[in-house]
């Protein structure tokens, strides 16, 4: 099990190779080897969603994926959601609605919400609540997150016209 390897992957549109320990999770690899600390450690058991990233089109808890499993994968982290200096509508709406307090769960919610809106441009409230049932927030009571996701969805739909 011990030993090191090189993992090549596409992270936020950029081809990278990462030197990782075989025992590392994808979360550790992103945070320590790639320097992308946006994905957070909340439980390391797949229960809180703070480490959510999109891997080959699916939202995963990166704490439950081994770094070695990401070989050849396409990954999107919270750092890859904005378009350069232009914030994604989800990011703008989270700020406008004050949908974060401490902000530790925010990267996971943004990644999860982005995957939802990529697949479902006009989600119902029920769909939003259940899609993000795996993302825990202890500060906000979810109310303002709901408003932010709804408004971001509308903004994205309007932009597509």
């Amino acid at each position, binding site marked *: 099990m*011990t030993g090191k390897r090189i993992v090549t992957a596409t992270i936020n549109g950029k081809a990278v190779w990462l030197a990782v*320990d075989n*025992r590392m999770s994808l979360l550790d690899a992103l*945070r*320590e080897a790639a320097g*992308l*600390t*946006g*994905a*957070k*450690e*909340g*439980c*390391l*058991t797949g*229960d*809180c969603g*703070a480490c959510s990233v999109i891997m080959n089109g699916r939202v995963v808890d990166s704490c439950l994926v081994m770094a070695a499993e990401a070989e050849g994968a396409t990954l999107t*982290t*919270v*750092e890859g*959601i*904005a378009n350069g200096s232009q*914030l994604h509508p989800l*990011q703008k709406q*989270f*700020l*406008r*609605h*004050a949908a*974060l*307090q*401490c*902000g*530790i*769960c*925010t*990267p996971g919610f*943004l990644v999860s919400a982005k995957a939802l809106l990529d697949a479902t441009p006009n989600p119902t409230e029920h769909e*939003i*609540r*259940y899609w*993000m*049932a*795996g*993302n*825990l*927030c*202890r*500060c*906000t*009571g*979810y*109310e*303002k*997150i*709901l*408003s932010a996701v709804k408004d971001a969805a509308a903004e994205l739909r309007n932009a597509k016209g």
Partner: protein
Amino acid sequence: MGKLQVTEQSKRYKVIGTRPVRHDGEDKVTGRARYGGDLFFKDLLWCKVLRSPHAHAKILSIDASRALRLPGVMAIVTSADLPRLEDRMVESGEGVENLKFMTDRLLARDKVLFKGHAIAAVAAVDVWTAEEACNLIEVKYEPLKAVVDPLEAMAEGAPLLHGTLTTMTLGKKVQKASNVCTHTQFKRGDVHAAFKGSDVVIEREFRTKTTHQGYIELHTATALARSDGQITVWTSTQGGFAAREQIATILALPLSRIKVVPMEIGGGFGGRIPVYMEPIVALLSIRTGKPVKHTMTRAEDFQATGPASATVSRIKIGARKDGTFTALQAWMAYEGGAFPGNWGATGAMCVFSAYKAEHLLVDSLDVMTNTPKVAAYRAPSSPQAMWGVDSVVDEIAETLKMDPLELRLKNAVEEGSLKADGLPYGRIGLRECLLAARQTEHWKSPLPEGPYTGRGTAVGFWHNAGLQSSAIVPINMDGTASVVTGSVDIGGSRASMAIIAAETLGLKAEEVRPSVADTDSIGHTDVTGGSRTTMTTGQAVYEACQDAIAQMKLRVAKLWDTQAEHVEFKDGRFVHAKDPGKTMTVKQLAPNLPRTGGPVQGRASVLTRQPGAGFGCHIADVQVDPDTGKVTVLRYTAVQDAGTAIHPSYVEGQMQGGVTQGIGWALNEEYVHNERGEMMNPGFLDYRMPTFPDVPHIETVIVEVPNPNHAYGVRGVGETPIVPPMATLHNAIAHAIGARVRSLPMTPHKVLDALMETAKMAAD
């Protein structure tokens, strides 16, 4: 989303009451913000902790020799490496703590007192080596009988946690050793005579289980000790200064040797006031000369950090036929965990905080148990005390066939009413909250249709803390400003500090840059806790701005060739008292600062003793599934007095977040212990906090009864909203099923049992 009741008071303001984007927001939505765990150094050593598998045992020996021989292990420390501190009480964050117990809590010395109690800490080249080394440390234990229930811990013959500790009862030491560390009593009049003369007397017993703050960020700390003796600690803490004091005390070092850099913090709710790892990683860094980092697992976080007390309480209230309360009596026992605390005393102040009565008797006990030492959790001790009261109040309303809000209005405390300790309240807003609740759409609308639905209401209180804060406000050469404080920002307080400075200086919120300083860069500031930051640190920011304004008046006087007393500052600009047409803004003055005497920075340090109590009133509709006992919260409204809402979105956010934690405490959350005192559910899967689909829309109504002790009328808002949900939901469930569940959490099986009981009684 929320409705803000605008009073005459808040209409006066230009920036206060607006909702600017928080200044630290972009970093938090792009992943750039640096939290405690986000630091990595090239030569970082990783720390892991060996913890007790027993809830109660003597430590016979610790042998780390095999572990030390493992390649990659750099240092191992145990309690033997910590200085022995004297038996003396010191201020620590939100309470007082005995020095001797501070070190014993951190690393067990002769006995382990709870499962998860730290015994040894390893620093190694990677986390796996540190873990493996922990497994190689040999500890010989003599297991002892453990006790986790506060009532069992009080019983005759219960295993004693500390063999020699006796009870401090009503200020006096009792001779016999006991697990009860303090008995607090408040007494007014003669409750026994008053109960005899009452038309209605109801007495009930209530229980709650241990709960956890459940912040999402794991406890984490990193330290670097240099060879010149200077130590830097990067950590997620609610107070850099409180952390520094605890580290310095435990390591017996001067404060000047330690710098604490408070990183962005992923939630605290009181749980990040005590330090758990900071002194240990500092000690390991002293030993190795390298930076050392420790991050707990979630299981360690549940088992080895301070949760909130389990409680048993008996509440008795007497009333006349017209609803006037005659006498209030409470007996309460608070789980304190493995070391002496003061949570029962805190609860004694909260229990009848909302109601007036001539006669009052409160007895409250702090009981030590083989569980981690209890820490503050949002309005600590208040939810456990108040929910039983508002259940009994609801039963009195039913008995007297009175509207529950009317009954509460009749007995609600107001300015001049006496608190349990006999001191009078200042200006408070409970009545205004109850009146506002009665006017809500929610209260006026009928219950949702369907079987087993019910509506409940209840109130909540928190003292709000004042304490000490420092602020610096440098004026920039272009007329913008910075605000530097020592208050860690957990929920958007930087935005509030910027708003207060902007309002005071006549700037826009965006023209003020707020930041949180480390312990080298600002004067002492107490923790972000006790709902004190916007109130007290906000007051410090206001006074620092006034200091800057006073300095700037001298400069304006120079430019106008007049005396400073002729320069006034009104509506955000300097005005010539003799020539009101002559005005100057801070922006216009700023470029002239270099040639009129140099830079200007305002500064202030404040100590607030009269912070202004906070009250709220909640309303909930629930539906109970008669087959499973599951409770669904259909609708929820929270009403609260914020004094003045500086940034209404973050006030609403505090209310909605408090409600959600309260829903969890009411319906799901509890530590489940086995007979050996082990927590059986130390993870988010089994300690189930509310998820997105579990909570309804939470409507908010902000009431503004300005706090006369604050420049802008601010009251703390963070803690009060966790208090009412337990009784609000309990009362709603009672109305839905016709039975009362007097034990938290009100899980499906307890609700189902209550339902079946009423069905049986109806059949009989």
